[in-house]
């Protein structure tokens, strides 16, 4: 699909894995400039990138680290933006369970044990994704390409594909840390509205996330 002169939207393929890893890492950093997963599992950014690459290569569908969820915006032969979305619980298993299964498979026992020890704090702003909704995750647009409507068109392209496969689904959601004002404002611009939020008063939450409040933004699909 051509969205503007010189920009094309396409489905992610194996050759795009490095860019999708970059997208996930940069989206994770958001405004906080650190990767929550690195803090949650006590791993380096290098290790996180390695693990995400392995998970993407495994080809499991319908959670946030599924390559097939992603659309890539291309400027010529250069990937300039990416965004992913899936139908939550499509195969009878939540994306949360798939994600922790993936991380358990590719991280050390020590990292999993560390997560278990700090999880009660991190869970204070966890919101379970709603089965039967479209879930968006990991938007990333190269700086030079921001403000050119690419994010909005990625959202529309993802929605078009998902709606073609699942015409009865009427809600799309995305979760963002409220303090990530860039992502929050971008999704408001894409037609999402704030549907719910969860705040922790525990200052330790800032060891793991860039803010104390997680927001669900929702878009009704006509």
């Amino acid at each position, binding site marked *: 699909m051509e969205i503007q002169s010189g920009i094309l939207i396409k489905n992610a393929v194996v050759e795009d894995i490095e860019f999708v890893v970059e997208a996930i890492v940069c989206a994770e950093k958001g405004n906080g400039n650190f990767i929550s997963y690195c803090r949650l599992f006590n791993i380096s950014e290098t290790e996180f990138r390695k693990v995400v690459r392995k998970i993407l290569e495994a080809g*499991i569908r319908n959670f946030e680290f599924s390559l097939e969820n992603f659309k890539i915006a291309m400027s010529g032969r250069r990937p300039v933006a990416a965004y992913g979305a899936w139908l939550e619980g499509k195969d009878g298993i939540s994306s949360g369970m798939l*994600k922790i299964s993936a*991380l*358990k498979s590719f991280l050390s026992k020590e990292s999993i044990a560390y997560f278990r020890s700090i999880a009660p704090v991190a869970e204070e702003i966890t919101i379970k994704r709603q089965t039967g909704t479209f879930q968006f995750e990991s938007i990333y647009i190269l700086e030079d390409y921001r403000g050119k409507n690419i994010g909005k068109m990625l959202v529309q392209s993802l929605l078009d594909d998902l709606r073609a496969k699942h015409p009865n689904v009427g809600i799309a959601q995305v979760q963002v840390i409220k303090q990530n004002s860039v992502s929050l404002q971008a999704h408001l611009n894409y037609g999402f509205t704030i549907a719910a939020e969860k705040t922790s008063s525990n200052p330790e939450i800032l060891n793991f996330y860039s803010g104390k409040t997680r927001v669900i933004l929702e878009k009704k699909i006509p």
Partner: protein
Amino acid sequence: MQTTLEIITGIFARLLKKPGLKLEMNDSPDTVAGWDSLTHPELITEVEQCFEIEFDFKELAGIKSIADLVQLTDLKQNKNSK
């Protein structure tokens, strides 16, 4: 001799701190309180250690119910014993 279901039930009861827990084959994270993304790695690791098996990611991604876990455990055990 205990069945695989009974042994797994014991593991879930101990780790989820629910003595007397009775798991059915059609149970899933939706029906077993406490079986969630927080406890899942520990539960699976304990099953792996108990039966001396190891699940890979694709296998774990297919576990949607206790029946899936029991069947996969039996399958891995049978492979190991051959």
